[in-house]
């Protein structure tokens, strides 16, 4: 689905906990999700820490939208 959106020139930042799949199928801006049942955030953290993690992931996604890419690229939040 994301490829069809990319095809019309709308950049897509794709969040997935199994990045091998979108990278293989042809998504270009892929951000590593935390886990399949909680892609953005982490229920094992306190609410504040979880929101902070989600914010970092979202910022990575937004950053990727402003970055030119030519091959499928994976971005991950670096552990502090």
């Amino acid at each position, binding site marked *: *689905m*994301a*490829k*069809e*959106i*990319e*095809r*019309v*020139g*709308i*950049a*897509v*930042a*794709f*969040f*997935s*906990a*199994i990045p*091998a*799949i*979108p990278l*293989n*199928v*042809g998504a*270009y*801006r892929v951000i590593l*999700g935390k*886990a*399949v*049942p*909680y*892609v*953005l*955030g982490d*229920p094992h953290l306190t609410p504040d820490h*979880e*929101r902070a993690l*989600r*914010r970092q*992931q*979202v910022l990575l*996604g*937004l950053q990727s*939208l*402003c*970055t*030119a*890419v*030519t091959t499928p690229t994976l971005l991950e939040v670096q552990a502090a």
Partner: protein
Amino acid sequence: MATKLRVVHYLNQFFGGIGGEDKADARPAVKAGPVGPGVLLQKCLGDGAEVVATVICGDSYLSEHIDEALAEVSKLIAAQRPDVVVAGPAFAAGRYGVACGAVCKSVREQLKLPAVTAMFPENPGVDLYRRHAYILPAGNTAIDMAGVMARLAPFALKLGRGEAVGPADLEGYLPTGMRRNEFGARSGAERMVEMLLDRLHQRPFMSEVQLPHYDQVNPAAALSGLENATIALVTTSGVVPQGNPDRIESWRATKWLKYPIGHLQEMSAAEWTCVHGGYDNGYIRLDPQRAVPLDIMRELEREGKVGRVLPYLYTTVGNVQPIERARRFGREMASALKQDGVTAVLFTAT
């Protein structure tokens, strides 16, 4: 009399009888003998082979920690000294198909043992691993279990005995995309003329070379900045308003929808739920922002870091979505997003 082949069977947490989605993070473990569908596998193998052990691993654990998990799984398999490894069948389960493909690849490359698995041809595991493992086609669901095992067992025996494996269409596995040269009875010129005559007379013919269909999309240009951007939130995680008013299905969804979010500062559990049937959606039900990050986007809007968030959530359930339908949804979404003046998309998948 030939010695009985030793078979190790790889299963996920569900078929291994450990649990459902709640146990998708189960670490690799081994049980003696056949488990669950392994019993049917043993029956189909007959006296030629024995399922000496079953290695079970949670689908999420394997796909999220692939290197460590494969190392642990390989170790457990190697300890059983098998002649061949059978994984799955995974049917349409995406993480399971990826796991089965990965296990087979690892067994072949690290342990130098033959391996075979089976899954629905559209399972993402097929595209990822078809070059690295023998994958037999299977139906969508476990309704096809008996049919698949009846084909998996003889294939496993063949591999275990070291017999030569012929071309995909004769042996019944999904084409790997690799070609092997052989001498034929007739020359290429003769076969070509015969094929041409068949085509001219509108008779059925089979191309000797299947041209691959590369559907590559060019990456969309990067944005020069976000301050004036309209960002849309799109998801296949199955987040929908409480009550699922439009009855989106939990698998093989027949529709995608737009729901207004312009008036919201966050996605609350009171107003939203999750109907995706392919993973444990409990965490997202407790906090839908784990799939649709509206809280963060509103923060960023207030801080001026993002122009605006599109006041509509684009959502559907991605579970076992037939590829052609997914493409159609994608084209429809793309057209609607363009009409909505969207600059870029944050897309969350599960």
